[in-house]
């Protein structure tokens, strides 16, 4: 049943602190359609969807449903107009201690209207009726924390359906799901479509788009660059639109001597995110691990640096098997990490530059356990010079430094630790151009000194620019490895979007 419902966004513009995120974007969805929304990271998909769901206010443009203009001033207003969003983090939207039935009816329970008494019998009946449209195998009296991730998604959907939903936005719904759960999910999405709901489907996985969507819209750099019927476009065509013509950044890449294997990971698995990854890095080599958001890069990086333990698989350093119970074990073996969440995990923002730089090498600046302020100052001054950190003095608090300088400290603290393997997770995120090239230079110098570098990034161009080898990660595995100069961005994107040569899991 295709309904005539039509939601139209036209001329939507949005700026963040003077930086334009969206340029006059037009986007239209129809009831009874699955509309895939694609784009590389930072293309503006999420911003557009946040405007639609009321989280942001547009600077310009209008939103209309069946011709009448909507004023979506808050998420609650969006819900009143029947626009709902299923975020990737389903857990944040559900109350784990309550039952399935209570969660489905949460909006009704928390609204000011209706009786103050909860009628459990009629509630159960309503919830069963809704769930029968999705998946009736879920026991509605179970507590939500007992459910699997896929089941939680269903509960969240049921909650949306308990209200009058006209548009549902799915933000990368399949990223955390297993293959069979994905199939179930798509069955559900098709049944919603048949019920006349307009489904907006954000994903990075091209095969899913080609198989399940009716319409495709591609965004790039805050603009809509393509809209059309899915039958009329190929995967390569979509990739072409996603990349457009991008200018390559200059990377100061040195030629280094590549030596023996340093770090080697075999069949590393953990939960749904890392599903059997193999990877190796040699002396003097920079291995760029590229993949889209949600491919499992951060999770793999954390396992290799000892922050999380793998369920299966083994990690070798110079041929010796490691058992990493905590990051301290990795550090003492010579594997150090520069984590993605630098302000939360990489540095101590309420402390001084000196303290941040000396933390991993306290032994070197202390005698009999007593820290020598003189040695600490000297170390810090040396590092500040070598890294080009712009700080007033070593006693300045790190929270007053720019993101790029903070990142240099997160790297710099390891330089004197004698580490041999450096694991970088999105080191250029939130870093300005100048600091970026400094960071590339530091990484190049490390490789030149015979260190092994693992460089996890979702910026494909960066991976191509810096890597001696480029490993593409997708769906928790390394789907393809290219040598330097072998790959183009389009190829990387193809493999990163789930275009496999063969199924590695089989």
């Amino acid at each position, binding site marked *: 049943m295709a309904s005539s419902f039509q939601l139209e966004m036209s001329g939507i513009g949005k700026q963040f602190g003077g930086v334009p995120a969206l340029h006059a974007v037009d986007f239209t969805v129809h009831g009874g359609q699955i509309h895939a929304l694609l784009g590389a990271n930072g293309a503006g998909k999420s911003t557009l969807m946040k405007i639609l769901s009321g989280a942001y206010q547009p600077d310009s443009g209008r939103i209309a449903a069946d011709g009448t203009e909507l004023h979506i001033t808050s998420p609650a207003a969006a819900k009143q107009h029947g626009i709902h969003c299923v975020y990737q983090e389903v857990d944040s939207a559900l109350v784990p201690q309550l039952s399935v039935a209570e969660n489905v009816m949460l909006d009704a329970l928390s609204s000011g209207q209706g009786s103050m008494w909860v009628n459990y019998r009629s509630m159960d009946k309503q919830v069963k009726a809704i769930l029968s449209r999705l998946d009736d195998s879920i026991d509605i009296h179970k507590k939500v924390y007992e459910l699997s991730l896929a089941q939680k998604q269903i509960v969240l959907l049921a909650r949306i359906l308990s209200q009058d939903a006209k548009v549902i936005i799915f933000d990368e719904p399949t990223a955390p799901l297993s293959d069979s759960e994905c199939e179930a999910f798509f069955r559900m999405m098709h049944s919603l479509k048949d019920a006349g709901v307009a489904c907006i489907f954000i994903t990075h996985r091209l095969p899913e788009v080609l198989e399940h969507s009716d319409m495709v819209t591609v965004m790039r750099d805050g603009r809509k660059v393509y809209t059309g019927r899915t039958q009329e476009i190929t995967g390569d065509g979509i990739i072409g639109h996603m990349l457009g013509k991008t200018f390559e950044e200059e990377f100061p890449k040195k030629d280094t001597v590549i030596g023996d294997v340093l770090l080697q990971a075999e069949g590393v698995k953990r939960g749904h995110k890392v599903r059997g990854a193999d990877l190796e890095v040699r002396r003097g080599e920079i291995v760029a691990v590229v993949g889209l958001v949600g491919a499992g890069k951060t999770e793999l990086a954390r396992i290799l640096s000892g922050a999380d333990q793998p369920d299966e698989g083994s990690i070798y350093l110079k041929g010796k098997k490691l058992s990493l119970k*905590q*990051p*301290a074990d990795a550090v003492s073996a010579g594997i150090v990490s520069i*984590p993605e969440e630098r302000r939360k*995990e990489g540095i*101590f923002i309420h402390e001084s530059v000196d303290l941040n730089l000396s933390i991993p090498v306290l032994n070197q600046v202390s005698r009999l*356990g*007593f*820290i020598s302020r003189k040695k600490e100052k000297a170390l810090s001054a040396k590092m500040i010079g070598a890294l080009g950190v712009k700080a007033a003095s070593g006693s300045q608090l790190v929270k007053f430094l720019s993101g790029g300088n903070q990142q240099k400290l997160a790297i710099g603290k390891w330089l004197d630790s004698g580490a041999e393997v450096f694991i970088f997770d999105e080191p250029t995120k939130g870093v300005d151009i100048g600091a970026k090239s400094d960071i590339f230079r530091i990484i190049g110098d490390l490789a030149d000194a015979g260190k092994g570098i693992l460089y996890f990034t979702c910026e494909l161009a960066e991976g191509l620019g810096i890597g001696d080898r480029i490993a593409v990660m997708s769906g928790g595995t390394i789907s393809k490895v290219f040598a330097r100069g072998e790959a183009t961005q389009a190829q990387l994107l193809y493999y990163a979007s789930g275009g496999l040569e063969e199924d590695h899991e089989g």
Partner: protein
Amino acid sequence: MKDKLLNLAFRYGAVVVIIGVIAFFSFRLPYFFTYGNLTDILGSITIVTFVAIGVTLSLVVDGFDLSVGSTVSLTTVGAASLMIWYEQPLWVVIIVPLILGAIIGLVNAFLIVKLRIPDLLATLAVMYIVGGIHKTYAAGYTIYNHMEFPDGTKAPGEMSAAFLQLGQGKWFGIPISAVLLIIAVALVHIFLTRTKYGRQMYVTGGNEEAARLSGIKVKRVRTLAYVASGVFAAIGGIIYASRVGSGQIDAGSPLLMESVAAVFVGFSVFGAGKPNVIGTFIGSVLIGVLVNGLTMMNLQYFTHDIVKGIVLVLALAVTFYVLNRSRT
């Protein structure tokens, strides 16, 4: 302007209040500002300050130890019984309670670090257990020299003069225990600010995940903090037994909140904004001065808690108001 005033209040507020309070009492009470009275004040705060040092250490690693009060009770009764019931030599009387304190710290650490029970809840439970153990062990009696048991027999031992020196002896009018306290404060201060272990404790408390990823063994650091907390409470308990010359049941219960108050007053001393042992000591002094002065002004005992509570609220208000402003 307003910010500057606030920061000044934050930095020097506690110190100004202490000086003001001392000046006020000195002016009103002729005997307040005398050598004898000041050393008395110092003596009166030693036990609670030893306990407060332990609480400071648990707070440095972003934990909390509620079990220190009952640890004091257990070790007081333990030390007294070893001397009076079992006639043990001095070194046993001192070592065994210290070991008991360390064991309680290990239990806390096991519950918090290994089983991941929130620290307040874990140490609350341990507080009850230890409190119950010490009452069961003493069968509800205060342990005093040659005490008479219900069956008519008498305890064989009494507290030795050497042991009593610890809590009651004086050097040049200064209580020996206060001298020990000042040495302990100095050592812990050096430990926390000058050694790498102290540094590791502070960064673990400041940002545990960043500390972990920097290669610090955060579990071990936190465990040691709880063990140290138990040991310092045990020192408080030993001195308590020596001070009163007997093993009082439930001696430590009132010490818990008082030591916590001292630590939080210490947060605001010199604008530290974090647990620090010098601040803890000053916080303790402030409370000691207040109690001493109020007693001399003939205020009734039970009104003291009101004053202590107000001091704590003021210190907390200044600390957290300023800290939250500067963080956002």
